[in-house]
């Protein structure tokens, strides 16, 4: 346990390090990994939705999100950025876990698979990172647990039969076996909040975007695994 | 009215003895009501006297505030052998008398 705590401080560990071997193999094989169904769909959508008209794929930096957005003077995440384009086009926006948006974000982040998370340093985003960290460390819900209680203090130990991960976001959107579908970070946040019997926030809420931003700093250096497979 | 008294049969001359009396009586105040709400008429003992060898030695006037089954305790000095008579009377004229003899040695 001491060794694990040291690791937490020195180098973050991806959630895939906590998987059982079968699940790990499923993630690593692009033909077996069900997440690639969404990646393929996203590639098609990139053209169908007309993204190409304005954006050159080679210039999209999906893993830089969430980032500071001068227009709203707040953070914007990748899903929010896609929806802004939809609004400008006069198209209806998508929820975080609508299939097309999951597909697009999975496709875009999958292009950075294997690259290390390097959050953009931006002083204007600093207050939001702090807000995200405060959220992360605050005990909440009837079970009175913070994100940090489980994913820092207890990471590596077992909850019932399952090892507790460090709670990084480098594999999202991720295919959750439990749900049988691809899922966004924000859906996972809601699930965790509900598990400690805390009132969840809406997907896309500023609280979750801030938390996501903080977590990318916390997971600095981890390699992007999108689409990962998790329990 | 059933009544009971308690005093020694024999005492030494000049001794102070304790006398206890108890009489069974409901002592209805006239303010109470029965289960149907009908006022129960007043019915109380109003008068108690004790005479010793022909002389009245204790008397009590009872009023509605006295509880049911009145109990009295008082003292008298035994001087001569003779009868001790206890007498209760109610506001309806009912009477009860108990008589005892005290022997002074």
């Amino acid at each position, binding site marked *: 346990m001491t060794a694990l705590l040291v690791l937490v401080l020195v180098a973050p560990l991806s959630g895939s390090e906590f998987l059982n071997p079968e699940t790990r193999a499923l993630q690593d094989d692009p033909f077996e990994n069900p997440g690639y169904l969404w990646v393929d769909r996203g590639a098609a959508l990139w053209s169908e939705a007309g993204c190409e008209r304005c954006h050159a794929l080679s210039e999209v930096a999906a893993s830089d999100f969430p980032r500071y957005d001068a227009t709203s003077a707040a953070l914007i995440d990748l899903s929010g950025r896609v929806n802004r384009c939809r609004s400008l086009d006069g198209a209806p926006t998508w929820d975080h876990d609508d299939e097309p948006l999951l597909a697009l974000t999975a496709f875009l982040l999958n292009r950075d698979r294997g690259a290390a998370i390097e959050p953009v340093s931006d002083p204007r985003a600093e207050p939001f990172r702090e807000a995200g960290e405060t959220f992360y460390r*605050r*005990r*909440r*819900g*009837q*079970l*009175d*647990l913070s994100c940090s*209680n*489980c994913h820092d*203090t*207890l990471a590596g*130990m*077992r*909850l*019932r*039969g399952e090892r*507790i991960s460090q709670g990084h976001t480098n594999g999202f959107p991720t295919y959750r076996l439990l749900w049988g579908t691809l899922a966004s970070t924000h859906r996972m946040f809601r699930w965790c*909040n*509900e598990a400690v*019997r*805390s*009132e*969840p926030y809406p997907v896309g809420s500023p609280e979750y975007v801030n938390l996501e931003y903080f977590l990318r700093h916390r997971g600095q250096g981890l390699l992007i695994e999108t689409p990962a497979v998790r329990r | 009215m*059933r009544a*009971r*008294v*308690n005093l020694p049969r024999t005492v030494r001359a000049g001794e102070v003895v304790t006398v*206890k009396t*108890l009489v*069974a009586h409901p002592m209805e105040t006239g303010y109470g009501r029965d289960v149907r709400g009908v006022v129960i008429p007043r019915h109380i003992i109003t008068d108690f006297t004790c005479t010793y060898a022909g002389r009245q030695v204790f008397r009590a006037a009872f009023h509605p505030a006295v509880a*049911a*089954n009145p*109990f009295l305790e008082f003292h008298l000095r035994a001087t001569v052998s003779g009868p001790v008579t206890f007498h209760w009377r109610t506001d309806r004229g009912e009477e009860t008398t108990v008589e005892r003899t005290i022997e002074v040695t």
Partner: protein
Amino acid sequence: MTTRRRLLAAAAGAAGAAVAPGVIGAARPRVVVVGGGFGGATCARYLNAYDPDVRVTLIDPAARYVTCPMSNRVVAGQLPPEAITFPLDHVGSDHVTALAVAVDAEKRLVVTAEGIVPYDRAVLAPGIELVHDAIDGAPGGFLHAWRGGAQAVALRNAIRDMRPGGVFAIAAPDNPYRCPPGPYERASLVAEYLREHNPRAKVLILDAKDAFTKQPLFEEAWRIRYPGMIEWLPRRESGTVIAVRDGVFITDFDEHAIDVGNLVPPQRAADIARDFDEGRGWCSVDPMTFESRVAPGVHIVGDAIEATPMPKSAFAANNQAKACAAAVVALLRDRPPPAPFMMNTCYSLAGSDYGFSISGVYDVEQGAIRGRAAGQSPVGAPPGVRAREALYAADWYHAITRDAFGVGDPERGRQVVVARERGDCAICHELPGLDETSHGNVGPSLTDVGARLDARTIRQRIVDPRRDNPESVMPAYGRSTGLHRVAQGFRDRSVLGRTDIDDATAYLMGLKGSG
């Protein structure tokens, strides 16, 4: 009185001789509860329940409490004394095993035989003292068996050993006294025993009253069940018992030869409350808070107070204790105390399968307790009704002793511990019979927890583990306050209820490891 004053002075000199364990936190007001009976134990438990941050210390010289309810069944040989004995360590408070001898209301200290215990508020639930000096020659070797404990067993043995055809006599006191129907229930159950084992024996009640509670119900039962066996001599027949001699109870007007005598003398508030009774024998309290009218910060509940029209019963003490706990918690937090709403039910057994009851509901109006509703079992009810009420009496006893003393049911507790929607303890802890894939290892194994920890500690760790260890990650299963953003549907209630925690504690106490 002088003795207590002297002790107070001695205690003031021995400053620092505090016996209470642990550390007092600034935001953790301390309430000291004196007496581990129905009033005290209930109050300690509900203080904890209403505000887990209040630090509760229970002072009682004994580690266990023997109840007066159902003690007549022990006297009549129907129950062993263990069936009415409860350990005080499931109450969940710190327990100082010492005799409390005085309260210094100005310095806010309780003086015990072992040292002093400071408090922010004190709750006295000391029960009664028996006043033998009203009866010449008392106690004279006669048992009262009116405070639970060893006397019930001694009286049972004396009745068992009584000569054939002997007279068992009960001297019943005038009102007010603890458990108004007690003498008549005792007469009934002893008659039931004698009918079987000593059929020519008699039961004689020498009563200092002319009437008693549930009288028509008792007299009906005596006619039906024990014809000719029980003689009740009210005060108007024989006066009251004024003296006792060997083999004789002497009333104002008669001498009664007896074989086994049970002398239940007049009563008053127990010694420690006497500084607050204004010489009246019973303590006067503000019924909104149960705070003494003469000693601010000292609350008094149960048999020691004047609470007419509530009787001196276990149930009344239990309800007063809850009202008092709510008031104490409110006053400690500068909130207005809630208005008490209380009830009482006294079940009586006129036979092991023959029960009846009287109930009352009470609130407070203009500083006085007021009866709002009342009811009583009907006279002339068929035997089935009496048999059912005897079962209700047993259930009532089970419920109120659980409520007061918190000794749970281990089998139910296993469900609470295991069920995913309830305790789900296996998510973090090892439990017996689960393999590695079915239990977590975040917390210590519970397979031997009953051998490692006592009941009080187990209970407190379930209720709020951070009271013992501020670094603990474990959720507080008995707390509903101080939480952030609790999901709708879980707000204002704790994960587990008090009863669940009692049961879980009882189950965990049984996990002793080995193999």
